[in-house]
């Protein structure tokens, strides 16, 4: 199978200049410091953009203790992959790491963590915004407030 990336990648089977991706859907707490400490950037990269989505203490004006996330995980992984493929076509992103929690996530804890590495901030920020916007449109994950 030839690489599908649009960056004149010479490799096949996803090996070459292809965008690296790491997708984790987990019930475990997101350890942001540990994730950042594992950052890998090649020397041509100048931007590492991070986004953390954190559970607020209210939902529609009502106080809550947590949010319970549910995923249709097999489809969620596939839909995330479609978004990543689109990012790969649109921007010269070197890597994307994404962690989404499922299960009960307490107030002030991260439910989502994203890292985008690209040569410049413009494309990294644009790719990050696109990823989150598309996730909220297509990835089958739902939330239920816990009072």
């Amino acid at each position: 199978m030839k690489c599908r990336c649009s960056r004149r990648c010479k490799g096949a089977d996803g090996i070459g200049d292809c965008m690296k991706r790491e997708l984790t859907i987990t019930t475990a707490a997101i350890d942001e410091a540990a994730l950042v400490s594992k950052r890998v950037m090649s020397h041509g990269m100048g931007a590492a953009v991070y986004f953390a989505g954190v559970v607020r203490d209210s939902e529609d004006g009502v106080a809550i203790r947590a949010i319970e996330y549910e995923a249709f995980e097999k489809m969620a992984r596939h839909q995330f992959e479609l978004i990543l493929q689109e990012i790969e076509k649109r921007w010269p992103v070197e890597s994307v790491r994404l962690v989404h929690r499922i299960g009960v996530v307490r107030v002030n804890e991260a439910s989502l963590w994203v890292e985008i590495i690209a040569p410049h901030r413009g494309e990294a920020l644009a790719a990050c915004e696109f990823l989150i916007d598309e996730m909220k449109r297509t990835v089958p994950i739902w939330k239920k407030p816990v009072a």
Partner: protein
Amino acid sequence: MTVKVSFYSYFKELAGVAAAAESLPAGATLGELHDRLMERFPKLAPMRKSTLLAVGVDYQPRSCVLKEGDEVSLFPPVQGG
């Protein structure tokens, strides 16, 4: 033919089940299945227009022709993040 139907999020509560099987005539479409499910699970009917429909792991239009053994999922708008 028979297809497997799964419900997610609060659709499970409204349907009263997480999954069900539905028998359909050959050549039936996803839209026809959806209409049939709205009759079988009437509490889902008010969400008819906002319901998202998938076959396997891909969204599909109502015109999608189903086949034996397809796994169909119904769920409300997604809310990740």
